[in-house]
């Protein structure tokens, strides 16, 4: 019997040193797709996807810039999606984290592959050109992924307190499983770093080359995005989509103007609730498993934490999740070679 799956597309920060050569190694047969994308980038005078992926050395300065990272991650994730064995796996719905929404739109067919690249590339480039504010991450779960309600409330209260100050801007950028991604201006971010305890010897962690995504600070970016990208790029999706509010867009029944407005409006300037998207996917579609597209492996943890926070299939604890994974995996990360093989 076919397995059912919800596919999750990754956001920024997932193509790092370990992922260099991802396309070359895993997708040597997708030359047509990559060639189209390379032409598109070359036409804009940007480094091609092949050049970036095939570089001799990973360079943070090059590979994590929005204008490079976004299209690179988009290409890897699209190629991974196309590699899923559809004879064995029935894909019920697609969702994503942050810019993963653009990938999800393409996977579902609401954007064609080149249209999706256009959107990811345009928005990544605009983010890089403006680079308004930044992001940092801070956890509210412990090592065993148990939510600490007090810490969660403390974080939110601190955000409000800092944001109320005269110069600081700070808000929740992404609900990312057990992590909160905060975004704001420099005053807001450094106030949070100064005032909150350091956790696990690493948090809060700043995300280099990230802007204050999913906040009002991105209004100008959203506006330029709408000016650069036309609603005619969008078509009826072939698969259900779950957005960053946990809302479902059904095939054959999407208001394409609303989909366009959400993608280049609310999605850019309001909190992206990845946790809720996973909750909706889990509860409404009840798949056998979640497949997190590559590149990278970091979104798997946030996906698993979101499932536990939703008490999905009775799972509450990290050991619950591990047991499920050992018996009949509920989460496949295509960025992990062993797991990847099981869905090809």
């Amino acid at each position, binding site marked *: 019997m076919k397995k*059912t799956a919800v596919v999750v597309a990754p956001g920024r920060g997932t193509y790092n040193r370990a992922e260099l050569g991802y396309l070359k190694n895993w997708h040597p047969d997708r030359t047509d797709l990559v060639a189209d994308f390379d032409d598109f980038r070359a036409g804009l005078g940007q480094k091609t996807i092949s050049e970036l992926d095939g570089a001799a050395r990973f360079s943070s300065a090059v590979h994590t810039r929005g204008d490079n990272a976004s299209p690179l991650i988009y290409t890897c994730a699209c190629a991974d999606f196309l590699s899923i064995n559809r004879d064995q796996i029935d894909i*019920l719905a697609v969702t994503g984290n942050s810019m993963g929404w653009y990938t999800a739109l393409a996977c579902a067919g609401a954007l064609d592959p080149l249209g999706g690249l256009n959107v990811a590339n345009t928005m990544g480039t605009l983010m890089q050109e403006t680079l308004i504010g930044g992001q940092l991450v801070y956890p509210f779960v412990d090592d065993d992924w148990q939510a600490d309600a007090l810490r969660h409330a403390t974080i939110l209260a601190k955000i409000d307190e800092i944001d109320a100050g005269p110069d600081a801007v700070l808000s929740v950028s992404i609900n990312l499983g057990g992590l909160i991604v905060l975004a704001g201006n420099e005053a807001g971010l450094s106030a949070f770093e100064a005032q909150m305890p350091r956790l696990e010897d690493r948090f809060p962690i700043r995300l280099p080359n990230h802007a204050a995504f999913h906040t009002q600070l991105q209004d100008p970016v959203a506006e330029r995005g709408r000016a650069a990208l036309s609603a005619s790029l969008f078509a009826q999706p072939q698969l259900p989509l779950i957005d960053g509010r946990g809302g479902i867009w059904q095939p*054959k029944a999407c208001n394409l103007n609303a989909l366009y407005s959400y993608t280049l409006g609310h999605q850019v300037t309001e909190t992206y609730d990845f946790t809720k998207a996973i909750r909706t996917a889990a*509860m*409404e579609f*009840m798949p056998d498993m979640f497949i997190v597209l590559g590149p990278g492996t970091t979104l798997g943890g946030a996906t698993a934490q979101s499932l536990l926070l939703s008490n999905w*299939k009775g799972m509450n604890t990290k050991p619950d999740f591990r047991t499920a994974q050992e018996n009949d995996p509920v989460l496949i990360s295509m960025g992990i070679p062993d797991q990847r093989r099981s869905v090809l």
Partner: protein
Amino acid sequence: MGAAKDEGVDVVGALIGVDRFQVDHVADDAEFEGWESDDPLVHSAAALIAGGTLTADDVLGIYQSAEDQCTRVAAEAIKRPRLQTPAQVMASIVPPLRPCKPTNGPTPEARHALFGADVKQLDKPQPMSRLLNWALTDLMQQHDEIVMMGEDIGTKGGVYGVTQKLSARFGPDRVVDTLLDEQSILGLAIGLGHNGFVPMPEIQFLAYLHNAEDQLRGEAATLSFFSNGQFTNPMVLRIAGLGYQEGFGGHFHNDNSLAVLRDIPGIVIACPSRGDDAAMMMRECVRLAREEQRIVVMVEPIALYPMRDLLTEGDAGWMTTYPAPDRTILLGEVGTHGTGPLAILTYGNGRYLSTQAAADLKADGIAARVIDIRWLAPLPTQGILAALDGAERVLVVDECRQTGNQSEALMTLLSEHTALPHARIAAEDSFIPTGPAYASTMPSRASIAKAAKRLMSAP
């Protein structure tokens, strides 16, 4: 045709929406199939196919995928642990709190502009209808998610003027004049509640609520319960009601029974007795709906809307000034007036009449305290017991009928929680009549005083 067959046809007719008068025989299979082909879903699918939006295979694909989805979800849902204890079962009757963005409210200038000429009246004593109107005005300005709906509440400003000027001040899309249909009014409120608004529907007369009872009992009040608090439809339902309305309505409009509301788990019932209380309780009602997602019903005593005097004509004893917008009466907070050994436990018109009776009793050497319970559900037991501290005997005064109303709950409370001698005076089990006898079935100033004397002189 036998009675049993008739009943069968009626049930089938009711289930599929066919009027019983169209059906005078037992349906055969072909007839059932005929009805089935009239299913609105089938018509919708046919329209989509005819319009070229979908093919028949597309439609079947959607049906199949919905069925598969339900099957997958059901297979997991059935594995969930079952509730065991009453506490688990009841945990979601009262919905969870919801965060509301703090606000500083309107500026004094904005409020001044909104009230316009009324500003000059704000510090002058007014009857309840006016103070309620101002409270609603302030609340609508403070919270733009408030939407009202009801019969003649907009242009006309309500039968008793409680919603006067609201339509002009906030627009017809926030003060909706509806059809004369209570189910539509509450249905609209439920839908708006689902979508994050704070609806404030009005049922024009308490006797009209019965047409739409199930919108509260079966629909709104159960939503949090059966969705484990995931879905809610908060609202503040205003109902003009109760008896003592001279010269109008009879049982068609007036009713003096709240049994229809009292036993519904989770709902809050408020019943103010004077304008200042009404304004402050309305603020709490809106807070309960907005922040705690509660379903709140405020029963507003029609007879007290215009009441100006208390003991003698022209004494203006039942009018008060408008309480400042930050003042409120919390859920469970009862009102105690006086300190006498005789406690009169009452609400609504009962408080007004008991206050009159207390003045008469004082002349006879009996000192009374009048305790207005204000909140009929949940019953403010702790507040009532605290208000009874030092009392020697308790008279329950209930303008509603003896059967199924507040006096039964209060008598039970007194016998379960106190050792105080107590008695009750409540309305007869009658409908409200028209004509001069309009108030004859209910407690009066004189009958309350008489009952009080009897209680105080008992050995």
